[in-house]
């Protein structure tokens, strides 16, 4: 064996040894986005006692895309999110995160660790903990029991919490109990908790419900800054908000009775006969 080969071999060994250290140990598998697809939903069907909440639904979200999903009540928007995040198992179909992670095989916590963040329709924060502590728990870190028992926040982590506090306009409320926040502030806090997780895909279920006009506008601005870095799926009823987010050039998906009714620009979709029929009734 020549000396340079031995040298190369030793270097490879070093790299191999170093690798597990550099990778976060709590994620079993990193999603692979090389094909430009962040989320791939194929033919999923969910029925509850014979009622088909989702009927062969197909959806593809590109990496860095911001996609708005609209649809009348009962169209299956929330059920779709349940399937992606592991809360509901579909009867048939496939859900992939990136091109390699089969979400249907993972539990809710595993899906969250893989990098899918979800915001609920009703703001869900830890009411008895402070705003700061709410964010601390969401911080990307080892989620196991022993790690939590002895965890200390590093300077970088404190800075990250501070950054998010500024982003969600809650810096002055950091030590306040989350239960005392206004409805809109709780929505913001929950969005902040999602940001702390640093997810690659964000699912947002009616994120501006109950917000004032000003708060809604700020939320739209925030989402637009996230676009590109993260992939976002926003379910919303507020057409003005959807209009602001899509900026007249992004795709909107309309769900109806558990499948995709139309997909396209908001202006096109709004003029689509089928969509008008569904929304206004015959």
């Amino acid at each position, binding site marked *: 064996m020549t000396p340079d080969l031995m040298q190369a071999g030793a270097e490879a060994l070093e790299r191999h040894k170093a690798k597990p250290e550099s990778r976060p140990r*709590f994620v079993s598998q990193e999603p692979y986005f090389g094909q430009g697809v962040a989320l791939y939903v194929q033919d999923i069907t969910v029925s509850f006692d014979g009622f088909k909440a989702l009927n062969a639904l197909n959806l593809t979200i590109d990496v860095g895309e911001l996609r708005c999903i609209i649809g009348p009540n009962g169209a299956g928007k929330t059920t779709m999110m349940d399937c992606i*995040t592991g*809360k509901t198992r579909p009867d048939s179909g496939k859900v992939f995160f990136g091109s390699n992670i089969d979400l249907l095989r993972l*539990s*809710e*916590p*595993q899906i*969250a*660790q893989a990098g899918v*963040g*979800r915001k*609920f329709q009703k703001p*869900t*924060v*830890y*009411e*008895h*903990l*402070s705003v*700061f*502590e709410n964010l*601390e*728990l*969401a911080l990307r870190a080892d*989620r*196991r*029991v022993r790690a*939590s*028992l*002895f*965890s*200390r*926040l590093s300077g970088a982590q*404190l800075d990250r*919490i*501070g950054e998010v*506090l500024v982003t969600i306009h809650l*810096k002055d409320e*950091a*030590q306040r109990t989350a239960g005392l926040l206004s409805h809109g502030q709780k929505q913001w806090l*929950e969005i902040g*908790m999602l940001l702390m*997780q640093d997810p690659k895909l964000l699912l947002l279920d009616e994120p501006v419900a109950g917000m004032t006009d000003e708060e809604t506008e700020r939320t739209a601005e925030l989402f637009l800054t996230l676009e590109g870095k993260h992939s976002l799926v926003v379910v919303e009823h507020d057409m003005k908000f959807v209009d602001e987010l899509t900026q007249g050039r992004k795709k909107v998906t309309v769900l109806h009775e558990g499948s995709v009714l139309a997909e396209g620009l908001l202006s096109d979709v709004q003029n689509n006969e089928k969509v008008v029929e569904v929304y206004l009734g015959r």
Partner: protein
Amino acid sequence: MALSSPRGTLLGPKGWTGVLAAALVIGVLIPLLNLAVAPDSAFHLSEYYVSLTGKILCYAICALAMDLIWGYTGILSLGHGVFFALGGYGMGMYLMRQIGREGSYKSDLPDFMVFLDWKDLPWHWAWSDSFVLQMLLVIAVPGLLAFVFGFFAFRSRIKGVYFSIITQALTFAAMLLFFRNETGFGGNNGFTDFKRILDMPLNTPGMRVFLCVLSGAVLIAFFLMARMIVNSKYGRVLQAIRDAETRVMFTGYNPVAYKLSIWTLSAVMCAVAGALYVPQVGIINPGEMSPAASIEMAIWAAVGGRATLIGPIVGAFFVNGAKSWFTVAFPEYWLFFLGALFIAVTLFLPHGIVGLLRKKGERS
């Protein structure tokens, strides 16, 4: 603005003063007043009060355990009595063997076995002659029961009132099992007539004071441990599970591991309390597993103030102090009083006695 973790220290100066005061009262004042002060002096603490204090200290450990699982994690157990009793039975088995041949039948076997005409010790008494091994069982058996029960219950996502009902059923089933003579735990009479522990006589003033002080030391140690737990990120995850479990799951935590660990710890704390309790009261029988006994533990925690750690300890002292006075003064009315107290606390003092005191402290 400099951000820092808001709950960095274990206890404030006030908290440490309180712990020190409690340690002095239990470790110095009680032994002095009982052993060193002459019995006819006004300052003499009678043996009745020493054993009452020791008993309540054990109850306070249970209340503290309830606080971790109910107050902080939001899981209401109505079956913690089974862990307390199992710990008590573990200790009781050892104490029964320590009687030796001094029982009424002058046999090597415990009296109830002679009465049942058994010739040998049953298999589960194999370790009962060794203090160390038997104390291992005191921790391992209730811990294992809690772990297995909790594993299936939490994995199946049994929550809220359903979980409470199942725990109640667990303690009731255990009680029926222990009532049977065949189980080998003395049937409905349980164990009593203890004479010695570690070959030292149990029925001496010194031993009584020692057991009381030991219970107090264990309580303080558990209190500090609980404080460390709730101050850690782990403790905040527990509270997060209480407030919004789905959010915890979708943040990437597996709640089963968290709930199972605190549930098992809480059960083991109760078991240790039971083991300390039995030599002090001198009896253990299946009555400790009755549903009412477990419900009382929940009442101590609620009366004192949930999710405060100190509250349930105060609650255990308040309710049991009242009980020992009431059952002497108005024996028939105790249960009515207990019920009324629970209703009053639920309606008017959602944060218990400690919550009331804190509110007053903030106002003044």
